[in-house]
């Protein structure tokens, strides 16, 4: 499913790291930095979600809740109670992970539509908490005054500094996922995607691995949420509603299920796209929908895997034709 060999992946990681370092030399516009930072945050969420959907084959419509939990936990602990931000991010990840475990353990026994419904229900409950617990969360009007992150005296207080911060995390999230996917555990996840019964008969504890990957993806979302809160310094429930969950799932599908790099491209394409479509104002949702439909019809494996297969087919075709054969699909 993942069309890259290990050697190529190392190369991609190096190119990716270089790109992160070099891009700010060419970009001067503050707005562009902001868009790239949002892409980065979405990428972290989508990478985690892709491990769950693309590799393990379990669909969750609840990841806005985990994203939001990371953001709100960081906001409340640092701004209200004066906790130091960095340990709080870890604390938020642990709490979110535990909540994900208790949500995931029973719901992952469900399959297909039922799992989708269970996670959707959970995210709606979390959203209601964000809105209704206004003494703690600030309610619908949001939570202002979240401190920026800092290392010593160095404060990440503008878009440019946050670019490096966020994309460093993106890089490590990609690194972790690439290694996970190519490991024994990664193979187990792909096996579960293929057939749970067959995976079972090979000795894979499917419930355990499904729950684990669900927790991992929630922890990724929580990390992204915390970074978001400290970057923007203001959060409101609107950023973590049901539409965000749908958007994240869409990014997974458009980027390419079962490809770590697909998560990055999916998040990038759809985030930038919705920024561009602000121009089209009320028609933007139509354009967004049309592009989605086109991708799903013509590149059902997602853009990364889809284009890769397209390229490979052309290569095979030219190889066959060179030998005088005929290529048919």
């Amino acid at each position, binding site marked *: 499913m993942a069309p890259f060999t290990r050697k190529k992946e190392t190369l991609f990681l190096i190119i990716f790291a270089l790109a992160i370092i070099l891009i700010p030399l060419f970009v001067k516009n503050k707005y562009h930095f902001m868009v790239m930072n949002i892409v980065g945050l979405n990428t972290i969420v989508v990478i985690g979600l892709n491990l769950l959907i693309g590799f393990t084959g379990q669909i969750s419509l609840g990841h806005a809740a985990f994203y939001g939990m990371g953001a709100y936990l960081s906001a409340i602990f640092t701004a209200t109670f004066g906790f130091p931000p960095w340990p709080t991010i870890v604390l938020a990840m642990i709490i979110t992970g535990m909540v994900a475990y208790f949500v995931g353990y029973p719901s992952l026994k469900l399959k297909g539509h039922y799992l989708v419904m269970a996670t959707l229900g959970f995210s709606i409950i979390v959203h209601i908490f964000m809105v209704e617990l206004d003494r703690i969360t600030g309610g619908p009007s949001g939570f202002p005054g979240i401190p920026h992150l800092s290392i010593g005296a160095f404060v990440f207080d503008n878009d440019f500094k946050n670019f490096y911060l966020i994309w460093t995390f993106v890089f490590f999230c990609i690194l972790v996922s690439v290694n996970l996917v190519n490991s024994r555990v990664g193979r187990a996840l792909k096996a579960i995607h*293929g057939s749970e019964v*067959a995976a*079972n008969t090979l*000795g*894979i504890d499917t419930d355990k691995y499904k729950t684990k990957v669900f927790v991992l993806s929630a922890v990724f979302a929580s990390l992204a949420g915390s970074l978001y809160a400290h970057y923007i310094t203001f959060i409101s429930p609107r950023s973590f509603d049901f539409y965000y969950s749908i958007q994240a799932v869409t990014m997974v599908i458009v980027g390419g299920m079962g490809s770590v790099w697909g998560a990055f491209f999916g998040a990038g394409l759809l985030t930038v796209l919705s920024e561009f479509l602000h121009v089209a104002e009320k028609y933007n949702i139509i354009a967004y929908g049309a592009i989605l439909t086109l991708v799903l019809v013509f590149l059902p494996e997602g853009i990364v895997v889809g284009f890769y297969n397209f390229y490979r087919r052309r290569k095979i075709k030219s190889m066959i034709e060179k030998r005088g054969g005929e290529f048919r699909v």
Partner: protein
Amino acid sequence: MLNIDLINTYYGQIHALKDLSLHIEKEEIVALIGSNGAGKSTLLNTVSGVTPPRTGSIRFNKTEISRRSPEKIVAQGIVHVPEGRQLFGPLTVFENLELGAFLRFSRESRKDIEKDLRYVMELFPILKERREQKAGTLSGGEQQMLSIGRAIMGRPQLMLLDEPSLGLAPLVVIEIFNVIRKLQEDRTTILLVEQNARAALRIADRAYVLETGRITMEGNAKVLIEDEGVKKAYLGNDYREKRRRL
């Protein structure tokens, strides 16, 4: 080695296995024959924990396993080669084989696993050629070989083989059956479910005949193959006799 005692398995309301008992001794090949829907595959699924029995006991090396989950049963040393191969199509041949050794990675050294990998490649040289190919692109025979190879990678004491000859060319069937015999020589115990009753009875030590969830006959395979009832029901018409009647 395996003792099944009066098990009853249900699919919802359907009573699929009725007070069924059988036993398998170490390093035996035991064949299970019967017509469609007799419960042959269900029996294998019940042993491997996929469809646990409602009542009765299954003991493997004197340990009760009938209430354990499939992955725990694999850890005990029983590996199931399911009907229709159940390979992971998008994964490569190599990845499928590695998945077969899934539980061993945490307990054993990489070296032992690689040794078994070489053993599988020796048994089925074609898999070596195809190691980087996706399992879904293999031919039916190659897929069956991979399915058995994947089971070998779990280094089972008891292998449950469900219809290994299904839909395969006669020459491939011979190759698969030769491997089954080789596995027995290498001290694996085998419970073999087959539609191809004649081939199964030829390589088996003992056999059971299953009809609508009950065992109706059991005994030495060499004796059963000559049994008139078995011949009539499962081995097809004897044409010589037919010609004489004409």
